[in-house]
């Protein structure tokens, strides 16, 4: 395959041979630990080299005066602008326009990079060694963080909703649920959530929490399952604290028609507070299908 570069100038016999510019790096970055610590891989630049296309600007076009400066010079000019100057003004306007666009595009790209879950940032609060978190959890966590940020934004800019008006923040919660399939439970209450199986068939989950203290249950499925085959490991405490025994007392009761599961979480009074995690798996195929997380408050 052969490629030529098009010029915007009229075709002239090219005396200079074109050469490739050397890329910033010529090998893949295989050291994931360095990447996860937040160091961008070598050669973060070089992307998006689309700049403003060159506008043919007549020679001698004066630069746009800086605001506040040189007004004295302008004040001297009282005659209506000549046609030549009008044309220059048009070019000027378009050129300014392109510069503004490029700046706006750059801002958007920088913001997108910040929002693309920077895994190190997201997990820094958990004080784990780099690369120690399970990636699936990180991605979910990042999405949750973003959903939280969006909620906070809306809280900040929206006034209190008028009485009787459906709460948009509840709608936001529904969106976050759809993102992560969480179901929130209260100490004595019951809540329902939806997790959508991969093929679009919804399975409903009901969580009943029996506990003297507030506990928050998050149940997450990553793939299509046969609810009859669901089982959950005894939940271990996140920090592997020897003083925190496994949280037993989680039972799954699938319905006969395979469309719903009741999760009963009975927490002993003596269970120390903390976060407990357990794998949810398919008993039949032996594959990991999700996770159950319980945050037990003091």
């Amino acid at each position, binding site marked *: 395959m052969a490629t030529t570069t098009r010029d915007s100038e009229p075709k002239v016999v090219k005396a200079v041979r074109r050469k490739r510019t050397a890329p910033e790096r010529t090998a893949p970055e295989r050291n994931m630990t360095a990447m996860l610590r937040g160091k961008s891989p070598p050669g973060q630049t070089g992307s998006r080299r689309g700049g403003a296309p060159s506008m043919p600007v007549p020679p001698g076009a004066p630069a746009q005066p800086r605001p506040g400066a040189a007004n004295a010079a302008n004040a001297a000019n009282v005659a209506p602008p000549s046609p030549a100057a009008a044309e220059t003004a048009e070019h000027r306007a378009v050129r*300014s326009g392109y510069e503004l666009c490029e700046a706006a595009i750059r801002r958007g790209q920088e913001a997108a990079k910040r929002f693309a879950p920077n895994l190190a940032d997201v997990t820094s609060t958990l004080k784990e060694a780099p690369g120690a978190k399970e990636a699936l959890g990180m991605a979910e966590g990042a999405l949750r963080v973003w959903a939280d940020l969006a909620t906070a934004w809306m809280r900040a800019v929206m006034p209190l909703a008028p009485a009787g008006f459906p709460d948009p923040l509840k709608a936001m919660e529904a969106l976050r649920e759809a993102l992560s399939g969480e179901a929130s439970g209260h100490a004595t209450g019951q809540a329902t959530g939806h997790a959508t199986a991969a093929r679009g068939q919804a399975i409903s989950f009901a969580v009943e929490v029996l506990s003297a203290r507030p506990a928050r249950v998050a149940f997450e499925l990553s793939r299509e399952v046969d609810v009859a085959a669901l089982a959950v490991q005894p939940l271990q405490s996140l920090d592997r604290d020897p003083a925190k025994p496994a949280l037993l007392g989680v039972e799954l009761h699938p319905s006969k028609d395979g469309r719903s599961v009741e999760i009963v979480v009975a927490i002993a009074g003596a269970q120390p507070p903390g976060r407990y995690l357990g794998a949810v798996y398919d008993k039949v195929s032996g594959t990991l299908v999700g996770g159950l997380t319980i945050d037990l408050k003091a």
Partner: protein
Amino acid sequence: MARGNSGHIVTEVLAEYGARARSLLVTYLPDAEPRRYLYDLVADYPSRGGRAMRPSLCLATARAFGGSAERALHTAVSIELFHNALLIHDDVEDESQTRRGKPTMHALHGVPVAVNVGDTLTLLSLRPLFDNVRTLGPRLTMRIVEETERMARESAEGQALELGWRMDNKPDVSETDYLEMVLKKTCWLACIHPMRTGALIATNGGHDVDPILRYGFFLGAAFQIQDDLLNLIGDAKSYGKELGGDLYEGKRTLMLIHVLQQATPAERERLLRFLAIPRAEKPESDVRWLRKRMDAYGAIEHARSVANAMSGAATVEIANVFRGVPASRDRDFLEALATWVIERT
């Protein structure tokens, strides 16, 4: 009404998509108490007609990129609701008296009620975005929420720029400043955002939407400059606000900036004093003087030529946006807009 060939397809498409958007939009206006001071008023601005340019851009872009209007409809409605909310607030901030041929919301019901109505419309504009999750899935829905957040922020920043110039009676606003303000305040909501979201929906989030930003900017800039021109010289019946209102407002338009830059020191001083006077108290004789200065310095011609240049650049950019995209009525519509925005009256 518009002269030129661009008129037909644009009016046709605007009418069709406008109708579709409106029929979904009304379902988001609550039918509940309190009516007299809220929900009846909430329905007011959306029902006053208007071109429905923003939702049409969203739907047309989605379809031009091979998507369906259905999938983009909720987002288009959200944009239109948000636009109406900002109109109410703009009218308060500009102290305008008429909107779309009728008195403004605050002229009818007072500022506090108008502000509340505007806030409610903003809230209402979120609902359709959440409803997206059913058709677009959570990731794309979140992306659109992100885009909306950016647009809302840019709009607020643009408005802040303009208000700040007025409050500080800034004498030396440049054309570049003006264009930046227009980019933020007008172009994002009017053009960039509706098209970006339309493209993202059609391509499931995969499309590179930066070329759209350029087109949206030039289109919106041409649109806004034409709007400013029509404020001075437009047909009173078809132009929705009161003629000459910008002069009373002291709005930094290209024409005003041009005069400020061309004026003699004495004229400048008089002009700045004029601008410092509150709107209601500006003497009519000064307004007429300003208008004459604009004519004398060719400010109208200058602004018109810049609008033409913007329109020309938009035509260049739309070709970039649609490179490789097959022909369609929607694509024709979007291409025709570049000239329609400056030909309309």
